[in-house]
């Protein structure tokens, strides 16, 4: 059992599923994708179990090993991200089962595109596992490109509405990847290796390494949509088919951020990054405010959720400010990673719920939601639960993460960060309750919209109801049951000594 390459399996299984789906009819593809999702989940579960009990381990693909071969490195953080991806992924699969059966015409242009969807989705999934588990910088590049190209194709599946968004997304993701690759080249030029674990101790603070870090950070920030580099995100995320939106917002942006974090801490410990961290912190602050305000101004549900992603991604960067201090670093990094996980689940649930609402109503305009809230009870409950996570209210993963971020701010003595984190939660409340308003408001009697209120809410498949709800419950459970994930996080001291002092005061 121990000998079995479980880390590779977590990548290979969805990849194999993708290949099979590509050559099958749509109906069979759905079955294969489901089986493949289940198997992936199993593999990841075993992987978690193993890391939990044995600790971090290195798995060399094909037995070659670094520096020439490719190493997979499974430590706590990687595992947590993989687990998050898998949980969200399983629910996306469940949701898609219903979604692509009854999707509006524009989204199932021919039976071929259905099989294509499954294929692309599983490829992206596999590539994301690749990003999280790789310890090889170039391998990460390849996986990122696969994720990027796959995502663009998935966005484009939404039809004519999404084409421009997809195109812009493609350009941005390629540009970001190339900037990253530039950094990889510079690092390889300087130190002749690409393994992150090995690079950490040897990389020095030279001009080349600093330029490399800057280029990579810029590229990854572009892919993570850090304000003001977020301009591509709302259109792409909002116009994609619902499960794809969830995938992009919950997982894909996290993948690039994860790489940035790894680089930041593992590869370039030698560089003094305090000033840059402040820059990122400030940008994160701007992101929270900007994204929230924009979210509040949207007329479409999915646009609102997309801008909320812009705002929430700001938290990931705000935490760089306290992380730049010795006292705050450990808690801040914990908080950031936990936030990424919590946000992944919550945002996934939220987009799925939004998708379910849009499918039931025919479109996702707020005006068509008015007075029909009572027919949308389940997706709205899911939306509300996910919203609790976004607001950072207990009990939810968002609460735990925010608690950690605030603790970091307190330890680093940065009240501004505390204020931003708090205010961000309140801003999130504003836009979350803007949606929930429709769940509670009584239809305005006597107005001309009576016909719209009474009926015309299409029945949606059970899977589309269950998936967001379950995922939202997971997001809540992350707050009730946060000790195990946080324990997992510390396994293998993934970020070297940065996590060392950890949460212990």
């Amino acid at each position, binding site marked *: 059992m121990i000998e079995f390459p479980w880390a590779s399996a977590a990548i290979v299984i969805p990849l194999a599923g993708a290949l099979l789906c590509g050559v099958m009819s749509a109906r069979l593809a759905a079955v294969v994708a489901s089986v493949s999702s289940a198997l992936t989940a199993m593999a990841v579960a075993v992987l978690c179990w193993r890391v939990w009990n044995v600790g971090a381990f290195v798995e060399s693909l094909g037995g070659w090993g670094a520096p020439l071969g490719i190493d997979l490195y499974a430590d706590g953080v990687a595992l947590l991200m993989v687990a998050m991806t898998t949980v969200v992924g399983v629910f996306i699969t469940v949701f898609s089962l219903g979604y692509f059966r009854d999707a509006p015409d524009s989204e199932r242009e021919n039976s071929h595109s259905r099989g294509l969807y499954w294929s692309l989705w599983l490829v992206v999934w596999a590539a994301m596992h690749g990003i999280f588990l790789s310890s090889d910088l170039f391998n990460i590049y390849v996986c990122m490109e696969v994720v990027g190209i796959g995502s663009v194709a998935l966005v484009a599946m939404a039809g004519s509405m999404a084409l421009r968004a997809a195109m812009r997304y493609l350009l941005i993701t390629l540009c970001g990847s190339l900037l990253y690759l530039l950094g990889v080249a510079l690092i390889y030029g300087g130190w002749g290796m690409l393994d992150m674990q090995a690079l950490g101790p040897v990389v020095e603070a030279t001009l080349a390494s600093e330029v490399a870090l800057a280029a990579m950070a810029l590229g990854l920030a572009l892919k993570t949509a850090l304000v003001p580099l977020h301009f591509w995100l709302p259109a792409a995320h909002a116009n994609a088919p619902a499960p794809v939106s969830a995938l992009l917002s919950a997982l894909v942006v996290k993948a690039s951020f994860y790489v940035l974090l790894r680089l930041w801490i593992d590869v370039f410990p030698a560089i003094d990054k305090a000033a840059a961290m402040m820059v990122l912190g400030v940008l994160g602050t701007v992101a929270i405010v900007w994204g929230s305000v924009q979210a509040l101004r949207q007329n479409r549900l999915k646009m609102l959720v997309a801008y909320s992603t812009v705002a929430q991604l700001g938290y990931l960067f705000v935490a760089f400010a306290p992380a730049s201090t010795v006292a705050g670093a450990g808690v801040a990094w914990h908080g950031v990673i936990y936030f990424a996980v919590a946000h992944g689940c919550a945002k996934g649930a939220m987009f799925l719920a939004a998708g379910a609402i849009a499918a039931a109503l025919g479109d996702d305009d707020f005006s068509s939601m008015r007075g029909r809230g009572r027919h949308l009870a389940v997706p709205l409950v899911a939306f509300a639960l996910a919203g609790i996570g976004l607001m950072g*209210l*207990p009990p939810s993963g968002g609460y735990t993460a925010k608690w950690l971020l605030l603790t970091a701010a307190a330890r680093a003595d940065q009240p501004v960060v505390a204020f931003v984190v708090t205010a961000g939660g309140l801003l999130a409340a504003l836009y979350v309750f803007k949606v929930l*308003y429709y769940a509670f408001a*009584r239809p305005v009697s006597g107005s001309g919209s009576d016909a719209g209120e009474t009926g015309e809410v299409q029945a949606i498949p059970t899977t589309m109801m269950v998936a967001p709800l379950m995922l939202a419950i997971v997001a809540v459970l992350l707050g009730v049951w946060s000790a195990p994930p946080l324990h997992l996080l510390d396994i293998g001291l993934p970020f070297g000594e940065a996590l060392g002092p950890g949460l212990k005061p």
Partner: protein
Amino acid sequence: MRALVDTTFWLPLAVVASSMLPGIFIFALREEQWRVRTLLNLAGAFLKLAFIAVMLFGVYVGVEYETRIPLVPGFDLVLAGSALSMFFVALSGVLWLITTIYAIGYLDIEGSWHRSRFFGFFSICVSATTGIALAGNFFTFIIFYELLTLATYPLVVHDGTPEAMRAGKIYLAYTLTGGALLMVAVVWLHGAVGPFDFQEGGVLSAFDEEHRHRFVPIFALIFVGLGVKAAIVPLHSWLPASMVAPAPVSALLHAVAVVKAGAYGIVRVMYDVFGIHYIAELGIGRWVAVAASVTIIYASLKALAQDSLKRRLAFSTVSQVSYILLGVAMIGPVAAVGGIVHLVHQGLMKITLFFCAGNIAETLGLRRISQLGGVGARMPWTMAAFTVASLAMIGVPPLAGFVSKWYLGMGAVQVGYYWVIAVLMASSALNAAYFLPIVYRAYYGAPERPWPRDERAGVLETRASLLGPTLATAGLVIVVGVMAASPYSPVAWVEIVIARIYPPA
């Protein structure tokens, strides 16, 4: 690990869960399954009371109950039974049962708008309240505190009318902001001194030398954060706005859950976090007393100007809840008895008043004081209950309110805060000025027109399920006052609580 049958571990959890689980099940019920719903509600309420009774007895004989579940390293979910918390738990348990019966009757009259949703949130609301009461540390406290906010919002906006939605907005704006401030303060505190549990006698005095300069601003933040729910002027505006909610909700907001949670929280902070003697040392008590006094007077003056019955009652709540803080802030054993016992006394009186307002509104369709002429003849029992509760509010001996005021007055003398007596005198006079005209009008005013509606239930003036709870609480108002000296009265229990904090010399 604790044994599975360890009641000291399970009982606090059971007290919280006994209303949470029925609540969750109720959500799943269809509107017309009222029998199951009622059964679940009542079963939950009685079960909870039984658990509370066992636990109360246990605490009385010295058993230490504690549920401890690790959430975040250093921060556990702790539910523990102290004398003070049991006091609050018992209050909410008893009043919840009564309010549930009332609500069942009330909503049957009102018609079938989302009753499952209503009772579901109703139950969760009470769970959150008991959670707040039993919380053994700040982390847990905030979890339930925010849960309360979230669970109450759907109740406030239950009617779904534009006014209700507006009230809900105001409610959220205030309470979420308050909650955020509280969280910042608490994290700041923990950042400074590390994780700690609530402890009789306080925790912080041990950190005096190092962190004294931080404690006053932290307390101020906490006070503002909790003061929103406790409706301290000028943080009170949400409470009168929330008057659009159905009567049982108002009763819950005012008497059992929300405002009490705020006041109880402040009391808890003063006793179990700072320690009352340390509060005295920091010189905070005086300011709290001043804030409470300003609230008492200002809200009473505002109440005079209201014509809407429930709004007047709301301002009265704002005023009365501050008695609790006033009593505790005076920092003396006798005043503290008066303050803490007012938790229960105010609850009983105010719930009676709101029940009466609800009875009148639902039976006769009257909501304004100016319409109340002749109600005394039509609904003698309701008005008798109202009269009793009003007189108690004024502080007429030997009713509940008198006992509180009496102890507060004696406490003020004991610690030499003579100005508090003037506040109490003014408050009594103002209470009389805004309550007696209502009573007068109901008995001696002439009905101006036929009632907007007139529902009779057999020989009774209104439904038994509305009248019964009203009379029960009115009876309790009399009994707790008349039998204040008996060993089973709230006062007796509070004296036990206080004796632990101020050991008799």
